[in-house]
């Protein structure tokens, strides 16, 4: 039973969407704190560029491409949901989830190479930041994939189609965090 409170929209936005935006607000400051700490360290340590030179731009670029493509499918899923086509929306959400999965696989391969080359989380403060920031991001990727799987299963039955948009907003945020991480960790050498 949904309370009447949930069905109201005095602010002009559906309650669920408003909630997701506030959730993102809280996430932005978590990543904001982490990235600001990273940038401050980066500016005060010259030798960080030497450490950062070990990261692989091409793998990072591939992952950026994969994640952006998955975001495209999230937009297409939203378009399908707006037309009321739950089945198509669900299928496109599964494509998005597959994109997230591919991102994680590439990430795992990349980390395997780096760790076997002796660059672990306790090597230096650069690598501590590298693994922690990307790791927290990856945990958001996993959370987004689970949320989209739940939404997709409902959408396939034509239920809760408005949730497709909310899942998409969250996924774009995950994407956007990576857009910040990629230049900071890979390009700025």
């Amino acid at each position, binding site marked *: *039973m949904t*309370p*009447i*409170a*949930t*069905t*109201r*929209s*005095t*602010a002009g*936005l559906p*309650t669920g969407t*408003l*909630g997701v935006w*506030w*959730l993102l*607000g*809280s*996430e*932005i*400051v*978590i*990543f*904001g*704190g*982490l990235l*600001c*700490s990273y940038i*401050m*360290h980066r500016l*005060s*340590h010259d*030798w*960080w560029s030497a450490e950062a030179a070990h990261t692989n731009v091409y793998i990072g670029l591939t992952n950026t491409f994969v994640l952006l493509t998955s975001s495209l499918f999230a937009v297409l899923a939203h378009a399908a949901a707006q037309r009321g086509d739950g089945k198509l929306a669900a299928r496109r959400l599964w494509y998005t989830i597959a994109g997230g999965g591919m991102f994680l696989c590439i990430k795992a391969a990349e980390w395997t190479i780096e760790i076997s080359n002796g660059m672990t*989380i*306790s090597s*230096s*403060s*650069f690598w*501590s*930041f590298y693994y*922690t920031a990307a790791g*927290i991001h990856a945990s958001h990727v996993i959370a987004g994939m689970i949320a989209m799987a739940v939404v997709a299963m409902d959408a396939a039955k034509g239920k809760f189609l408005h949730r497709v948009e909310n899942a998409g907003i969250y996924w774009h945020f995950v994407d956007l965090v990576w857009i910040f991480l990629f230049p900071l960790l890979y390009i700025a050498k």
Partner: protein
Amino acid sequence: MAHAVDHAPAHDDHGHHEQSFFMKYMWSTDHKMIAMQYMFTGMLMAMLGGFFAYVFRMQNAFPGMAVPGFGLVTPADYNMLVTNHGTIMIFWVAMPVLVAAFGNFLIPLMVGCDDMVFPKLNRLSYQIFLLSAIVLIAGFFVPGGGFGGAWTAYPPLSAVGVYNLTPMGSSFWVLAVALEFVAFLLGGINFITTSMNSRAPGMKLYDIPIVVWTIVIASVLFMCSVGPLIAGAIMLLFDQNIGTGFFNPAMGGDPVLWQHLFWFFGHPEVYVVLLPTLGIVAEIICVFSRKKLFAYQTVLYTMFGTGILSFTVWAHHQFISGIDPRMANVFTITTLLISVPIAEMLFVYIATLYKGSITLSTPMLWALGFIATFLIGGVTGIYLGTAGSDIYFHDTYFVLAHFHYTFFPIAIIGTYAGVTYWYPKMFGRMLDETLGKIHFWLTFIPFNCIFIPLFFLGLWGEHRRIYSYELFDELWKYQGIRQFATVALVVMLAAQAIFIWNFFKSLWSGPIAGPNPYNANTLEWQCPSPPPHGNFAELPTVYRPPYEYSHPDRKEDFWPQNSPV
């Protein structure tokens, strides 16, 4: 568009009333039940925090004595007790009671809807909070004992097990604090969304009662400030357990980074707990002086200003941490600036009281007690916000007395004000006024007797967090003052039994309150006491601002927000 739905009777789901004990009290999604869960958990934690204060103050006043109820206090025990007293009182008492309990109870009632917009999220928020309390308490019993590196947990002391000697306890502590933050983030999203989206038809922004505004602004402040510390908590956990180097200079990290992350949250946190109390006090003062709140809109803009300024003052905690003296100038200026809006709020309350017909009921005594004591807390803060004098006062009992003069009015006096004021609404019966007043005076006077002497001890150079002063000749001669403060503390703690007695006695045998015992205007008083599931028989429509007391055009001296004429 939602109005058509609104007029459907709200007690459709009354058929569900056959709930098991577990579903009703442990697994409820009803905002009032969750508020009670938060309030009682917070009060139990307050007893634990108070007990800790009693034990370390006894050791402080009578070093080496076996403390009744605890036994001998070792230096490690002492560190653990002061650390966790601070942690518990701020994160597990002030936050759950002021923000979560009052927020949950009041927001849906005061904006005129039947529940929070995300009831299941609300339940999850309390469950994570409970888990965090359990993790914190579990941390006291692991090998090595509870964390003893002060509630601010500065690395390297907190990050390296060889330094703090509590490698497991410190990880439990960080984990508990991080879980607690997650719980309040979830709760805060609910508070903000509910008051943005689910207000009663007709309730415009300036018709929202101040206490709802304060809790919403507090939630926004919390949300904007806690993120960096959540990231910091993850870094600290990694530093403790898997050998990362975020706070380790040998690996290129920086211990002062933690201080920035901690106080970037820690200072707005003061306003997160202060604002709800200011709101509670505003409601009480209006009702018991039968006057409109002085300058409603100014109060609102003042609170926004306070919120924004509160993000620019954090480094005044770090004047002796080796920050650039030029930065110290900047933070001195912003810190002194923030005293302006807070002083303004107190002036607004005094202006509201001016020429009102004042009733000195128990909630009103607490509200006035808040203004009196918080004023002292605020004024002594000026000395600490100024870099020049703070270098001398840093980490002395002057600081300790200062922040107890702010936090005690906020967390304890504010809670008692709110609980005594809304008790009739929460439980449908009135509290005993005589017992309430005795309790007030037996808390208020000993509180001042504890902390005024500590101001002077601090001025004379007494440092915080010292196990025993026996070895410091120039401080040992003040032992009589320490004993006086400790005796006052014991009297104050004992007096809380009066409140507990009053609370439970009135629960069974207090006079029936009726829906609106104080003739108040706000919407929570326009539904039955205690409010049933779904709150209002018919969801209200709002016609006017919340503080229309003693309106000249009206026979009664109050004018409920939902009254059409």
